[in-house]
């Protein structure tokens, strides 16, 4: 069960049971992006308010498994109120976190270093990499957010 406890850490279950920043924002002005995982049926809608280069508000609706739901909740908490530059940095760090395990296996080199302290609660998602089929659950919200930011350019 140790693996399983790695996956379903208390923080994750907490965010699953009580997701942060759940809901909608009026769009426009908010950016509205849909995310979809056809294999699982997970669906998300991410709403973004950007003001003066800052992600002033974020709301998320949708349904999915505990991993995709908690990941979106953790994400929303991590990026809300941050500058767009910081948001992009957090996205980058998260994606690194999700590939550490695989790249270590694949290239047999130095594992990429992720500064776990810098990402706070997000580190709880680290256990997902041991379950490769679930990585796409964890990344759905993040990819959707990225798409939303791309619309700003």
């Amino acid at each position, binding site marked *: 069960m140790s*693996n399983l406890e790695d996956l379903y850490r208390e923080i994750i*279950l907490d965010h699953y049971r009580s997701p942060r920043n759940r809901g909608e924002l009026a769009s426009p002005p908010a950016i509205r992006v849909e995310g979809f995982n056809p294999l699982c049926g997970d669906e998300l809608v991410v709403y973004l308010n950007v003001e003066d280069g800052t992600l002033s508000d974020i709301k998320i609706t949708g349904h*999915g*498994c505990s991993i995709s739901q908690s990941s979106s909740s953790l994400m929303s908490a991590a990026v809300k109120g941050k500058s767009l530059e910081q948001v992009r940095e957090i996205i980058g760090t998260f994606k690194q976190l999700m590939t550490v395990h695989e790249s270590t296996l694949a290239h047999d080199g130095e594992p990429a270093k992720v500064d776990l302290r810098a990402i706070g609660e997000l580190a709880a998602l680290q256990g997902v990499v041991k379950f490769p089929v679930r990585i796409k*659950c964890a990344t759905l919200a993040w990819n959707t957010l990225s798409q939303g930011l791309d619309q700003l350019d």
Partner: protein
Amino acid sequence: MTSYDPRRVRSDTPLMNRVINGHPITYLDSASSSLPPRAVIEAMSRYYELRHANVHRGVFQTAVEATDAYESAREAIANFIGAPGGSGEIVFTKNATESFNLIAKSWGRANLTPGDVVLITEMEHHANIVPWFQLREVNGIEVRFIPVGDDFRLDLSNIDELMTGVKLLSVTSMSNVLGTINPIKELAEVAHRHGALIAVDAAQSVAHSATDVRDLDVDFVIFSGHKMLGPTGIGVLWTREDILADMPPFLGGGGMIADVRLDGYTPASGPTRFEAGTPPIAEAVGLGAAVRYLEGLGMADVVRHERSLTEDALTRLADGFAGRVRVIGPHDMAARGAVISLDVDGVHPHDIAQVLDQFGVCVRPGHHCAKPLMRRFGLAATARASFGPYSLHSDTDVLIEALGHAVSMFG
């Protein structure tokens, strides 16, 4: 005569020795794909070791043996489903899905014109939906659905109205999500009364009950090898000889022709017209072995055993989780099979499957290729447990225990 014992089937099945996360495997995903017995695996290995050759045009010994092996599999299957015209009515495809595409793209294109209706049901697998949508794009047919009631059974109250304009009724014999067994014989009678043909998706029933196409009085039957203890890479289409004789070719290539000239071609007759290219030879050998194995078990005994497993599991699921576990499918045993879809309050099917995996329990989360049905019941996914002839009551013990962990974990 037969002395069916599920424990013997289990010991015949190599994958049952697998250990997963420290636990012996508890395989509850036979509705997705069944586990082949040693006899099937070895029949294919022996085929490759002793007699593999391309079929049909060979004179040398192994080519003759390979052809005989391939054709005798066709006979075994004709026999298994009681095909009145024998092996000349059995077409080998790559899976049940290709069989449906064959009906739609050959029979459908030739026989349906704009406005004609193909009537299916809300509980169909995508394999019996998408080919008709594709045909609609080119032929302008109408695809109509028989609704599913809140009791998870077909709502046939308006069936005669629904039959207006219908040329083909295409329906599953058993839902791969709900476990519902549909009244095929009755539906065949309805279809024929309205001058329509009836196609049956027997993918879920063929290894779990006896199939007699003559008694059912149906016109097409399709199924897949890998759901009946056979290999992947092979499916079956059965249809009556007279229907087959009039169906135009589907895929083109070697084997399906009588002649090819620079200016055109003449198709072959019989099942070979629909078997373009080198067929799934080893797969037919494996499927033939699977059918012989199933016949050895005796389908009546298999049905009885799987009913008892299902009934017991339904009772324990209803009793055990203080109402948190809901079965998406008929709760009584009248006309339902050994497929149990679960919706657990507060636990997503993905998480259920993940937690259960830690106990070696294999259940499938998802929409099970039946999205219209899922939408009908407002669900994105279920966690589905399904039994096979090697399943035991002890599998249910492990399922219930592991499910308990999942439920308490997500509190």
